[in-house]
């Protein structure tokens, strides 16, 4: 059974600082997604990572994938308040398998 774990579960950081959220998964996988969820809202797609060594950046967020280590990271640079949200990674086990297995989520709070 595919297991997806994130750490930390909770992260409180000051504006302007950098930090990294980690996503580990237990079996080989073909693609990995990062989603953002604001309180009481839906899931917004941030990144899709398709292959080993893939790196994608959007604004202050950068995601990377190491399929050999079964690890993805979401790096936050110079955090600002509006990045406060819960971030989920989700793994698609097999190409075309459709089912996404989500991580536990990281609740990020940016403090002014």
């Amino acid at each position, binding site marked *: 059974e595919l297991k997806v774990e994130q750490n930390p579960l909770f992260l409180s950081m000051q504006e302007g600082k950098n930090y990294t959220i980690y996503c580990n998964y237990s079996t080989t996988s073909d*693609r990995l*997604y990062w*989603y953002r969820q604001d309180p009481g*809202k*839906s*899931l*917004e*797609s941030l990144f*899709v990572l398709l292959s080993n060594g893939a790196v994608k950046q959007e604004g202050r967020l950068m995601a990377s994938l190491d399929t050999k280590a079964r690890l993805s990271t979401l790096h936050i640079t110079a955090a600002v308040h509006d990045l406060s949200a819960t971030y*989920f990674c*989700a793994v698609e086990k097999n*190409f*075309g*398998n*459709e*089912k*996404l*297995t*989500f*991580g*536990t*989520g990281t609740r990020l709070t940016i403090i002014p």
Partner: protein
Amino acid sequence: EPEVTQTPSHQVTQMGQEVILRCVPISNHLYFYWYRQILGQKVEFLVSFYNNEISEKSEIFDDQFSVERPDGSNFTLKIRSTKLEDSAMYFCASSEVATETQYFGPGTRLLVL
């Protein structure tokens, strides 16, 4: 920008009652999904649907659950006899093909009393 829509946004029901949650996927999408999220927990896959049939379902998706695409636009999740533990946020998602990003709707918050 096209988006997935869901109705109702909130539903309160009594234990044992049937509920139908409705979704309108993005119009050119062919793959449809239901997920749920119990308050404060992670998102869990329920079922995927393609070409008018279930393509995969989780162990959560037991005989009390069913899905249907009654017309060309709606995609529904029915819970026949709700239990307290069915209380959760239910998300519908769709994708153009199986290998593309799944886009999520705003969710229906279901409360079973």
